């Protein structure tokens, strides 16, 4: 995308019928670290790559619990993501206060999408520079939605956003038809696999990824680093056994750091 005379204001259309500022906002999502989501009939798993700005700093927090039955993973401007998470939490709390029942996921994503749309139609605002994968469970089942800075939202069986997400999408495209019948553990494993695809050769350890799950009888929570590392190790053992000439590289990289710090 190149600079042009129609991209200064979000309220300026281009002759081709495009809003460039909104599209630039979606670019910001593509630059963020990867996040993937997968759904079965009973569970939804979110996984993200946690990049730290430097070895000295803590990791960015990219997965947020919104309510017992909903969580989000973000990619893009994490500050925008944090603010939107606060909004989503408020909506859930207010709904539960009035109706004594959890806010259905589909209604939450519509409110989020409407909020994003407002920023595409006010000259004094800018679009949110963050894409959200919303994972939730309600009476109609397990859901995974993607909310765009443009105000669009779609439901997915599986999706990936952020940098090098195409690799994860390709991986999932080959498998998604079976996801509905996956067990909880298979879903987690595939999420970790998908994240590994986005790393493209870089070593996958539990310290650089966050995995969270929500499901029937299981409120939204992050999965413990140790368990993630065990899954990674078991996967790597199988692969090393298959590729017989590689030395069994069992990196006991059990850097069981505390969960990513609150910003």
């Amino acid at each position, binding site marked *: 995308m190149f600079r042009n005379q129609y991209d200064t204001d979000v309220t300026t259309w281009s002759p081709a019928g495009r809003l460039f500022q909104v599209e630039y906002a979606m670019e910001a999502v593509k630059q963020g670290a990867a996040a993937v989501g997968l759904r079965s009939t009973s569970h939804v798993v979110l996984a993200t790559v946690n990049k730290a700005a430097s070895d000295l700093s803590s990791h960015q927090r990219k997965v947020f*619990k919104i309510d017992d039955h909903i969580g989000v993973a973000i990619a893009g401007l994490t500050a925008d993501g944090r603010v939107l998470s*606060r909004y989503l*939490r*408020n909506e859930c*709390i*207010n709904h539960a*206060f009035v109706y004594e029942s959890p806010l259905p996921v589909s209604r939450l994503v519509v409110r989020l999408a409407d909020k994003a749309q407002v920023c595409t139609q006010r000259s004094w605002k800018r679009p949110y520079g963050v894409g959200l994968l919303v994972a939730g469970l309600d009476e109609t089942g397990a859901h995974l939605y993607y909310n765009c800075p443009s105000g669009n939202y779609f439901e997915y069986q599986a999706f990936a956003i952020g940098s090098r997400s195409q690799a994860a999408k390709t991986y999932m495209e080959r498998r998604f038809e079976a996801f509905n019948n996956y067990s909880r553990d298979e879903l987690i494993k595939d999420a970790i696999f998908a994240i590994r695809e986005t790393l493209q050769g870089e070593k996958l350890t539990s310290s650089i990824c966050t995995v969270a799950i929500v499901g029937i009888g299981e409120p939204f929570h992050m999965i413990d680093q140790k368990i993630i590392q065990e899954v990674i190790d078991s996967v790597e053992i199988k692969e090393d056994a298959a590729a017989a000439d590689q030395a069994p590289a069992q990196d006991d990289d059990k850097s069981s750091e505390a969960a990513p710090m*609150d910003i």
Partner: protein
Amino acid sequence: MAIRGNWMYENNGGTCVAIAGADYCVIAADTRLSVGYSIYTRDYSKICKLADKCVMASSGFQGDLKALQKNLAAKHLIYQHQHNKQMSCPAMAQLLSNTLYYKRFFPYYTFNILGGLDSDGKGCVFTYDAVGSYERVGYSAHGTGAGLIIPVLDNQLKSPSPLLLPAKDAVTPLSEMEAVDLVKDVFASATERDIYTGDKVEILVINASGIRQELMELRKD
């Protein structure tokens, strides 16, 4: 049986009691809900768990109590999102006080007792009036049977006056079992003479291992 001028509120009767121990806290309330000289239900809980180690019991107008409980639960959820931990009992105590005073000119008609463990693991009881004035004490009682119960607690728990120097711990040296027995005794006594107290008493004991609940039958008349 609405009295003119008081139509916005109703007193649903009942009594609640709390006693703080060295490493436990006992909170109890009866389960009778009344209006006038009638009983609406014999099985209504006046106790609400606000946080891991923090429980509130209230007598007064149960409609306001329901609203107050929901209000505090929502505020607690926001706190947990922001701070990644549960509220401590003293923090919840201040929050309750502020929430009550917020409606200073249309009060919650509830007389609350907050009980739990403080950050050191010691039992704490906070007692309130309807508009949020509160104090940490060793024991407390509110409601229609309070007048019959407090003198007995004063006698048994020998809580020293806060005016005495040096300031002595207001928490009772009784063991957990003794405190629970005392609570059962005072409720049985109050039930004899107070028409609004009876049916069952719900007793919650908060200690380091969690919250334990007990129900004891009381006279139904």
